[in-house]
């Protein structure tokens, strides 16, 4: 069945350091979405990637979709304490629903 794996599961960084989380699928995805969930909160949509090799930026966040459309990454430049939370990718294959990755929990140490 569909599997979407994320690494690392946890990441602790000093404020100002960069952070990257990787998302890998066992099958080709038609698109991929990224979400952020603050501690105790609900997932909030960040961005959607559709095209092979697509790169999108939101301020300090850079999102990339792999050429083979089986992997994706989220990179945060110069982390801030407001970046704390769990980042999930969600991949859509040929079905009607997205399969969520296992998430990467980011802790930023001031």
């Amino acid at each position, binding site marked *: *069945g569909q599997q979407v794996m*994320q690494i690392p599961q946890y990441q602790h960084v000093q404020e100002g350091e960069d952070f990257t989380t990787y998302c890998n699928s066992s099958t080709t995805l038609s*698109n991929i*979405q990224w*979400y952020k969930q603050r501690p105790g*909160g*609900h*997932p*909030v*949509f*960040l961005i*959607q990637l559709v095209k092979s090799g697509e790169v999108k930026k939101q301020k300090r966040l850079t999102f990339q979709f792999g050429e083979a459309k089986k992997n994706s990454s989220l990179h945060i430049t110069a982390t801030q304490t407001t970046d704390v939370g769990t980042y*999930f990718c*969600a991949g*859509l294959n040929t079905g*009607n*629903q*997205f*399969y*969520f*990755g*296992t*998430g990467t*929990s980011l802790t930023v140490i001031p």
Partner: protein
Amino acid sequence: NAGVTQTPKFRILKIGQSMTLQCTQDMNHNYMYWYRQDPGMGLKLIYYSVGAGITDKGEVPNGYNVSRSTTEDFPLRLELAAPSQTSVYFCASSYPYGIGYTFGSGTRLTVV
């Protein structure tokens, strides 16, 4: 604009009891979903619906039931609650292949 509203926010159930988790959205989204999230884990799809009168199973449907009589409402029914159903339940909605799901604030359920 309320988005996706879930009730209740918290609930404690005894083993064997039943309950319905309510979910309502006011964005006229066709697609609605129920996920559960166990501590430190990702989101697992329980059931989803692509429109009123249409529902389908997700990854972990056992022990749950859903109905979709209107576009706005998508209640999740737990019959004979078990400790394994202790989790946080999120309802979400979207347009078909739309730009991102909108999630509700969740229901934290404990079965004792």
